[in-house]
């Protein structure tokens, strides 16, 4: 017991405080100034980084104009297609013949597709059907390849039942006439369907879906 007592008095300063060097007044002041200066520099950087964000639209009206686009399809013959630009994105609108509509349900085609039932959310609910569109005779797809963003060309894929189709020139991804990607292609998802509805028989309004009002390009798996 005396030994223990002696041991503790032999090293009276051997406690936690003395193991660390006592910071001098200068160290504290330097560290404090550097910390404050660093905080100031970060604060100053904030508006500069902020300014790199997207510029606000000049008015609410122009935002509305940009989001909604009415397309007349009166001039489209069955089997023909046209490409329009909506919100800076290419959108292919095809008018299908009865043969093309039948081809979309051909088991020989479905067997080669990655997601034939459109389970992955790349389209609004009302387009989750055999023809992947609102009306069987019209197919509307955003033609931005889901691989790396190139724009696929509209062309028939010769090895498949003739449903129309898309071919991406960058890395060779192939899609059928309903924008569904084939198996073993670089592209992982089907081409997106934009929000749309028919204003009348011959006018498609892009950017607004009546049945899925909250559907937009932000709600899909991948653009």
């Amino acid at each position, binding site marked *: 017991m005396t030994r223990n007592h002696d041991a503790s008095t032999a090293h009276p300063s051997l406690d936690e405080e003395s193991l660390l060097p006592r910071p001098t007044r200068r160290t504290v002041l330097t560290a404090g100034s550097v910390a404050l200066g660093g905080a100031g520099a970060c604060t100053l950087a904030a508006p500069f980084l*902020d300014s790199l964000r997207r510029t*606000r639209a000049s008015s609410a009206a122009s935002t509305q104009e940009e989001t909604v686009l009415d397309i007349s399809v009166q001039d489209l013959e069955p089997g023909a297609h046209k490409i329009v630009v909506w919100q800076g994105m290419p959108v292919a609108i095809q008018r299908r013949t009865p043969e093309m509509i039948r081809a979309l349900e051909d088991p020989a085609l479905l067997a080669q597709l990655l997601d034939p039932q459109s389970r992955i959310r790349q389209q609004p609910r009302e387009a989750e059907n055999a023809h992947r569109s609102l009306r069987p005779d019209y197919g509307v797809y955003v033609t931005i390849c889901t691989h790396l963003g190139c724009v696929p060309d509209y062309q028939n894929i010769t090895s498949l039942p003739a449903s129309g189709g898309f071919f991406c020139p960058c890395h060779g991804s192939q899609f059928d006439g309903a924008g569904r990607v084939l198996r073993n292609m670089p592209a992982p998802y089907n081409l997106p369907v934009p929000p749309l509805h028919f204003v009348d028989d011959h006018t498609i309004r892009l950017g607004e879906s009546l049945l899925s009002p909250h559907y937009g390009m932000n709600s899909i798996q991948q653009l």
Partner: protein
Amino acid sequence: MNDNTHPTRSWLDSRLPFLRPFCQHMTRFPMPPVNLLWTLGACLMVAFGLMVVSGLFLSLHYQPDLAQAFDSVEAMERRVPSGWLIRSIHTGGVSLLFAALYLHVGRGLWYGSYKAPRELVWLSGLFLMLLFMTTAFAGYVLPWGQMSYWGATVITHAVEAIPGIGHGLLVYLLGEDTLGGVALHRFFILHFTLGFIIAAVVGLHILCLHGTGSSNPTLDSPHPDRTTRPFAPFYVVKDCLAVCVFLALFAGLIFFLPGLLGKLDNIIPANPLKTPTDITPEWYLAPWFAMLRAVPSRLGGLIAAATSLLVLFILPWLDQSPRHNATYRPLARMGLGLFFIAFIILILAGMNRATPLWVWLSRGAMLVWFLTFLGLLPLAAYRERQASDASTQGDAP
């Protein structure tokens, strides 16, 4: 302090051998006992750095195009996130930069920092001042508001006063017959490029200073103090304190008085058919604008304004007195005191309407300007050299 044993440090030193001598020079640089006015250089560096950074971010949104320039500046103010703040830093910063610049030059005048062996420090500094004035003028044209357009018109037409080649030179510089899209693009490129040229000349200015060392304000006093202290940490801390005060002023100006220095006429798009009723330059260019107005002849005004700057360039040879500090030179003290008052009068004159009172005040101020540098300072130098010759002769026997 064992920097030489730190592995990163020795790795760098063996690959960048100049780095260590450079750092040692910068930190151990011997400083005479200078006062707070010597911190203005550090404030200027900070102000210039802020101008470059804010300018770069503004240039991301600016369109140097006749049809889009005004709208792109308006978009910065209203639609670019935090754009109003960055533009305030740039447009408010220029005033503080020039305030610090003129005080810095005034300090050099008062304490004789232009004298041998610091002539190159003085000349590179004056050259910097001219570059800053040119850059500020070019920058003021860019928003393409009424004041931009008409200010640029008036100043570029001063070039026309040069006999013989004036008109040809003006058209050559503008790139077309009148001030238009080609000139606007040139002003933008000039403004942008000069920022980097200024950075290089600032480096030269500091190089010149570090060759000879800072001047010592106490040498002419009855109690000269020849002790020196290393730049780090003594003057680094002093500079930091001044920079903090400077930044506080900066922030105060930007956040609390944003409208103080802006001109309402410049938020009206440029209209080549309608001159504003009141053309006033920015305060930092006002003295030379007042000179252009005070001389009845167009060429005379141009010569007077140019000469007013030229006399500053030859000052080291006009005033070769062995004494530096004007506090201990009665004649120079009076002359420089009057000159500072004259400079302020010229600023006010340039910003006010050209009434006979202001025109005559500008003429008086110009007289003081030239008399100080061409008369009083050489006279003071002559008498002080005679006095010092007499004293050395008196000591010799």
